[in-house]
């Protein structure tokens, strides 16, 4: 296990950071979060064609760069820092992993190159209006008819679900367990409704399936392990994205505390503020260690991943939210205004806390996975 990034990984981070500082400044985030599709196709194209980011961890034989989860995590951390509005998490962290984990060779060859090239926007639909992220909450039904599989039921909280062209769906297969299926975003029998999201920088949708035709991904009925693995990987990756946002919050807050003057002194010279900042740093660095370790487990220690992914998700969620709340507090009244950028991160933190299961859920999973 590597405990310090390689030079190539540092270089990747610098490259992505430079790109995003130019392409995703706060003004762009604010513009895009007000649009229904929530991303800028030109930037997405550059990010795909020039940096190859959607394919960063997808094997070369499926059109990707063949790097690992650690590199994918670096890309996501930087995107979290820039609050990039783009369908990256849905397409790469969710859908591509589901296909990699569940698909047959033929399915992977058919579906992944488009995702890796950034030409196919994809997503994964797991949770339903009941709000559960475990397999037990899945009620949407898949039935095999004469013309193939059909899906009936409802999915909610689907990230970029209204814009995705390829949707992977977790469904209950009558009599035999869970299955993963895929269909086009515009398929007959599928109705998509954008939801008003608390975090406008990450779009959510509700999908209603009424006998929509779908293809099975791998063997229908035996997808529970692949789905669980996908959610563990996604949790580890989301933890890394959260670290990027949390670091940006700390940077903004420390800078503000150095320059904001009250009572004739920079507020950062008051211990009440200093100690808050030190606490923010402490929470951030632990979350960073867990997120990095989880990404490394996704690459090299699959047995450890389930527990560590839950640990990283729970700890990252708590840390990000703590940093966001304290950042607003230190910014004072200005921190509560729309004009200040902190609330954008606060909303991403709150949304990330709940997406894929909240910290309480993940800590219980952790306890189970550690045999407590």
């Amino acid at each position, binding site marked *: 296990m590597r*405990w310090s990034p390689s030079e190539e990984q540092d270089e990747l981070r610098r490259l992505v950071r430079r790109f995003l500082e130019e392409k995703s400044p706060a003004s762009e985030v604010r513009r895009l979060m007000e649009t229904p599709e929530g991303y800028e196709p030109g930037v997405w194209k550059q990010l795909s064609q020039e940096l190859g980011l959607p394919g960063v961890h997808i094997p070369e034989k499926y059109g990707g760069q063949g790097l690992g989860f650690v590199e994918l995590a670096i890309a996501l951390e930087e995107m979290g820092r820039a609050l990039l509005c783009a369908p990256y998490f849905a397409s790469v962290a969710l859908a591509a992993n589901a296909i990699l984990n569940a698909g047959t060779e033929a399915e992977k060859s058919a579906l992944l190159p488009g995702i890796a090239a950034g030409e196919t926007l994809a997503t994964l639909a797991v949770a339903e209006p009941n709000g559960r992220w475990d397999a037990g909450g899945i009620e949407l039904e898949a039935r095999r008819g004469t013309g193939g599989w059909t899906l009936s039921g409802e999915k909610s909280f689907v990230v970029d679900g209204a814009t995705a062209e390829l949707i992977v769906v977790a469904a209950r297969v009558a009599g035999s367990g869970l299955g993963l299926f895929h269909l086009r975003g515009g398929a007959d029998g599928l109705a998509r409704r954008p939801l008003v999201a608390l975090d406008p920088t990450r779009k959510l949708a509700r999908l209603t399936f009424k006998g929509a035709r779908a293809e099975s991904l791998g063997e229908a009925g035996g997808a529970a392990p692949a789905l669980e693995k996908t959610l563990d990987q996604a949790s580890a990756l989301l933890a890394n994205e959260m670290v990027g946002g949390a670091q940006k919050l700390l940077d903004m807050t420390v800078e503000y505390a*150095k320059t904001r003057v009250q009572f004739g*002194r*920079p507020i*950062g010279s008051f211990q009440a503020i200093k100690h808050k900042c*030190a606490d923010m740093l402490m929470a951030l660095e632990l979350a960073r*260690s867990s997120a990095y370790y989880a990404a490394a487990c996704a690459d090299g220690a699959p047995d450890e991943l389930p527990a560590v992914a839950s640990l990283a998700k729970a700890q990252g969620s708590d840390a990000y939210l703590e940093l966001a709340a304290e950042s607003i507090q230190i910014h004072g009244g200005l921190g509560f205004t729309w004009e200040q950028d902190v609330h954008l991160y606060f909303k991403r933190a709150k949304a990330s806390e709940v997406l894929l299961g909240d910290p309480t859920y993940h800590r219980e999973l952790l306890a189970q996975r550690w045999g407590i």
Partner: protein
Amino acid sequence: MGDRMDAESVRREVRAWLEASWNPDLSLVEWRKRLADSGWGCPAWPVEWLGRGLSVSLADVVAEEFERAGAVGTPGGGGMTLAAPTILEHGSDDLKRRLLRGIVTGEHTWCQLFSEPGSGSDLAGLTTRAELSPDGDEFIVNGQKLWSTSAHHAKYGMLLARTNWDVPKHRGITYFALEMHQPGVVAKPLRQMNGHASFNEVFLNDARVPVANAIGEVGNGWTVALATLAHERRSFDALRAAARSTKGKGRAYDEQRAEVAEIMAPYTWYPQRAGRADLIVERAKATGRNRDPVVRQEIAKLLSLARSTEWTARRAKAARVLGRPPGPEGSLGKLYASEIARACSRVHTLISGSDSLLAGADGPLDGIIAEILVSVPAVSIAGGTDEIQRNIVSERVLGLPKDPQTDAERAFRDVPRNRR
């Protein structure tokens, strides 16, 4: 390449010397006299001062060979880890000649006389006074010191005392090597809230110290004290390493075991002070509390904190090994240790329930749980309070401005201080 050649020749040389010289049937002092004479006991010290002038990495090679041969090394404790490096860095040649050898042989143990009842976090605000005697040969010392380990059997004390009250606080302090066995020095055990007495308070009433025993210049003691403090963090690691090492048969081993036992005796409660996270899951299962969803949440939180703290330390170490500039992760260990200890205390209470009311033989785990609960408050104070640590982190790591100081530029005489 040159380094490797050096390493191999050093290895050959020390190995041959150990084969010829190491003998577990020697008395510990006899053996350590050989260490002092040969320079192999302190290979990183200068050649003229009982060492061999080797680099730290070559000194590691020597340590490896000592371990391979099972040879006993220099003593643990404050003499080797704190006093000696301070004397080497700041002491006169006369002091080096008089003091270093007794440290290496273990004949002279040392204690620290830094903290006072009136100066804890603000060490430089100390008020123990040292005044020149009428004949000008010695200083006469009056005051009280606190938290001195081993003061009751130490031969020398590393003493900080104020010699000038008319300059700002950092500039009026002198650092002395004080003879502890004299009528003006009385050490008494200081009982802690957990019942142990690991430290002493030391009363100085007209204690005498020769002018020649000032380490560094008179009035420059603060700089010298910083050198000692810089070594302090490493000293506990050295102690733990010493406590692990001795298993062999022979007089030198027996005497070393006794020496380590004496040095370690004050620290039996230190594992409890850290919170004993290692006991949590076992206790939860033994009591059946692991079935309570609230307890499970708290255990998961605590163990997440403990594991991620380890990973953070691994990251810091990896960066160090690669020679990268230290990131923020290296400065936070002490604060995390406090957080872990407090969380352990909470979760142990949650698990033990009403049994947390009991201590000693009636308490859970034969009193260990109670000892945890009443020892944890030390972690966030000892070696610098968490509040001071947060100041340091926010100023040095995050670059926040210092808060204005009211005492730094005034004569110490005029600075408000605690009443005695």
